């Protein structure tokens, strides 16, 4: 099982390394969003600084949609999804492998994005413990929900364009939790950060469990 998870995740990361779709397309898009927010919001009145965490996580969610789409379009090409179904790999292993790969890709993207935000929005990063914990939990949660919906587009032709509508409302709690916790970590608002982290953690657990179970009918039903 663990071997299969690693097999899938390693394959996905290798594919990303070869094709550089994440680095070459999604990351520039995310940076573009960071710039566009500056155009949309008044840079002189400090709106950007105040809203840094929220804007950051909105960009991450948009990027996540693209990363998930890419992750599953790879499986859609050349009948590979059928080959996976024929392989006898456990659907849960395929699911967890995809979640792991999406998580790693998103984490890399977020690292660059935090730097960009720190420089462009003049944000001092801090509260490292809470910040890192929030980033990890929010990312795993996003990947867990994303991978479950990613396969929907695979099995249902024409549902690819539905991914944002399906995924983003589901991720609303992640956006709320991650923004609030990041605000606290960055010192922009007071209060304990751990309830938010706990909310994100619960989201992760729930969707990882559901995804592992529900991937089987999604993959195996003919």
């Amino acid at each position, binding site marked *: 099982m663990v071997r299969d998870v690693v097999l899938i995740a390693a394959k996905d990361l290798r594919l990303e390394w070869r094709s550089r779709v994440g680095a070459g397309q999604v990351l520039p898009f995310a940076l573009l969003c960071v710039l566009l927010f500056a155009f949309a919001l008044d840079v002189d009145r400090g709106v950007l600084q105040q809203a840094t965490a929220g804007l950051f996580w909105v960009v991450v969610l948009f990027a996540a949609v693209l990363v998930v789409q890419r992750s599953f379009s790879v499986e859609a090409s050349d009948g590979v999804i059928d080959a996976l179904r024929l392989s006898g790999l456990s659907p849960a292993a395929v699911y967890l492998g995809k979640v792991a790969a999406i998580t790693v890709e998103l984490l890399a993207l977020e690292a660059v994005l935090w730097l960009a935000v720190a420089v462009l929005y003049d944000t001092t990063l801090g509260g490292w413990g809470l910040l890192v914990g929030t980033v990890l939990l929010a990312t795993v949660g996003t990947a867990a929900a994303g991978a479950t919906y990613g396969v*929907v587009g695979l099995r249902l032709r024409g*549902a690819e364009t*539905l991914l944002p*509508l*399906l995924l983003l*409302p589901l991720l609303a*709690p992640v956006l*709320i939790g991650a923004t609030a916790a990041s605000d606290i970590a960055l010192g922009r608002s007071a209060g304990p950060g751990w309830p938010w982290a706990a909310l994100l953690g619960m989201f992760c657990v729930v969707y990882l469990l559901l995804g592992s179970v529900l991937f089987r*009918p999604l993959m195996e039903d*003919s």
Partner: protein
Amino acid sequence: MSVIAPPPPTIRPTTSSRATRVLGVLSIVGIVALAVFGLFITPPDAELGETIRILYMHVPTVSAAYVAFVVTAVASVAYLWKRTEFWDLLAASSAEIGVLFFALTIFNGMLWGKITWGVFWRWEPRLTTTTVLFLTYLGYLAVRRIPATVSTRATVSAVIGILAVVNIPITHKAVDWWRGLHQEKTIFGTVDPEMQGTQLFTAYLGLTVFLLLFLWLLIHRFRLAWLSERAEERVLDRAIADRRAESVEEAP
């Protein structure tokens, strides 16, 4: 089940049965009673004044919607377990009615807000949650509209029906905490425990009426879904016959 009586030759009300006719009559009587109590008999609320009359619509619609989504989720689980058309169609029918009720909840909430706050929209936690969840279920209905093999569509929508219902409490919690700092007194979404007398009676009457309405709509909607599937099957049967004819013509 057996056909109880030969169908009358006149135009038939196609999805009604004795049970739904009884339900329908009860619903209509209930609506009239609710209107009498809600609009005329109950006194204005001490705090909310006349606006409480909108809440007699707002609260039962949201409750019925949640019931509908729970039905969808239970039917989705049952589908993945039993794999029968019944559960798939039940899940779909219930979700559609839930979306209707959610839309009405938001509509009533906005009217209430306009009177109370002077604006149609404020980031009141219940209203916000409802809207996010409304969009979730619009996604569910959109998935159902994608033409696909029946079993694939059923499986995929069952999964979404389950994920969406799990999302309800999480979104609730998240939005509550999010607005927690500037919480207003909220009366949305619950029957206020301080309600008394005719107000309390009307609140529960509203709940009953909307649950009856939900049941009535659900049965009809389910039967429509059933009919549509049968109609699709007829189309398919014809396609199969055509395809077979093709083999007779072209056979060497």
